[in-house]
């Protein structure tokens, strides 16, 4: 049975090699070449990136944007998962349904909604100015981008945590309480440590989704807030500088992989800790 099933992986593997691995290899080659024809090799594009503070500050701002949005998702998503795990099957379905609704609704539509909400005459400012305050600038600011990213990517945080929480043995939290620990102590010393694998999985998904969210970053952030995906797009299409766009893509992908690797390593350790 085992050996006869393995070939079933081959069709998809062939597609991935031909249309995912090969393009990425060509991309790396292009990032190291002098022009779009990949004739001779140079490291100039990487040198240009790391010697130009404008470029590496974009990378830094992008990575930081992900941290902010992920933290917002964690602070609001953990309580949703915690309440959801304690609810009956029906209420649980309703909560999950409402949580996944934004991520399934078209990204452009979602962003459009946020423009109506965050704009100068948007809902938030209508309420705000009704109290006599000056209108807030939310659209085209980083605060706005973080809010929208957190809303859209929330399910990626809630679902992995919910999965871990529903599988957790409720006796452990009960034991903690019987032994005299209060609810908060039980939360921080038992429940959260045991749910760390879910938290880490959620953080990885939310983080990578947020830093690569081209449409949201561009429409809510506007043209002045430049993050890595827009930078790559502008170099590739606007400036038609393919080798530099390729170098930016490679640098961005390596940065994402390093961060995922580190978070994964922390996740592995937390699983060991959870079992002990």
């Amino acid at each position, binding site marked *: 049975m085992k050996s006869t099933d393995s070939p079933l992986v081959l069709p*998809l593997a062939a597609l991935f090699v031909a249309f995912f691995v090969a*393009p990425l290899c060509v*991309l790396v080659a292009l990032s190291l070449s002098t022009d779009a024809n990949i004739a001779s090799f140079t490291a100039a594009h990487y040198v240009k990136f790391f010697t130009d503070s404008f470029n590496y500050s974009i990378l830094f701002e992008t990575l930081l944007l992900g941290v902010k949005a992920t933290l917002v998702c964690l602070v609001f998503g953990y309580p949703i998962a915690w309440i959801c795990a304690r609810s009956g099957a029906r209420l649980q379905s309703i909560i999950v349904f409402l949580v996944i609704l934004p991520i*399934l609704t078209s990204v452009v539509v979602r962003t459009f909604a946020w423009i*109506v909400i965050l704009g100068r005459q*948007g809902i938030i400012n209508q309420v705000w100015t009704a109290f006599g305050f000056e209108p807030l600038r939310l659209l085209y600011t980083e605060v706005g981008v973080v*809010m929208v990213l957190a809303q859209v990517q929330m399910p990626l945080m809630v679902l992995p945590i919910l999965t871990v929480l529903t599988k957790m043995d409720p006796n452990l939290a009960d034991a903690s309480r019987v032994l005299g620990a209060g609810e908060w102590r039980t939360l921080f010393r038992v429940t959260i440590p045991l749910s760390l694998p879910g938290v880490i999985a959620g953080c990885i998904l939310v983080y990578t989704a947020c830093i690569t969210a081209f449409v949201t970053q561009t429409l809510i952030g506007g043209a002045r807030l430049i993050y890595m995906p827009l930078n790559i797009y502008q170099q590739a299409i606007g400036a038609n500088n393919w080798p530099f*766009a390729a170098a930016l893509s490679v640098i961005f992908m390596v940065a*994402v992989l390093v961060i995922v690797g580190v978070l994964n390593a922390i996740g592995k350790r937390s699983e060991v800790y959870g079992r002990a």
Partner: protein
Amino acid sequence: MDAPRAAVDMEALSLRIVFGMLAAIAMVFLIGPTIVVLLTSFTPSESLRFPPSGLSLRWYWALIDADQMQRAAWASLIVAFWTTVISVVLGTAASLAIARSSSKWVRAADVLFMSPLLLPALAFGFAALVFISRMHFSPSLTFLVLGHVIVCVPFVLRTTIASLTQLDPALLDASQSLGASGLMTFRRVTLPLIAPGVASGAFLAFMASFDNVPVSLFLSDERTEMLPIHLWQQIDTNLDVRTAAVSGLIVILTLVLMLIAERMAGLTRQLAR
């Protein structure tokens, strides 16, 4: 004995209040934009102010004449359809191997198949464009669909593998010891049992493809404009009120499809395990 007991209950109460408030705020933020889109799409006026001054179907009727939007919607539906078909066929086959095999090659393939979820889709879209122009092809519907399959197939794999790992292997042994061939066991035993997982994955892949911008931006040819990109340009330039009606329509269709997926395949249960 009464005093400490009361103290513990106070603490339990404070935790419930704090978590309840955080979750309530989050839920308002999660659902609010959807409601805003729905209400705005029924506006009778020329502007996109919220709340709308009344309710009318004016802009929905205006969609009947919106040729460009309709063409874009068709193009997106066709690409999403083929992407889903290919993702389900290749993804289900690969899931069978991944769920049952422990060979390190199959493990590596699993990691490879999941990586488009983590890597920037825009960088992949660009890489694919570079690749096909190196091969002296130009962007076409075929390449667009293949590019979408790469970024959408992880959804099918995730839900299908999850259903397969919960499948009782004794059922497969029983089927085979009763003389059923491998293919018959798959059709009569495995497939009906994993169908909800496959269907949920297919639904997610369809929505992800219909919604995709970063890959379409590089791989669609000049003649075919995809709906999300068309809408994006509308929002970025003139904020046509018809955009609100299309958005409202997309929200309504998404809700209907989600309810169908929930009834037929238990979508929320598939995702929460």
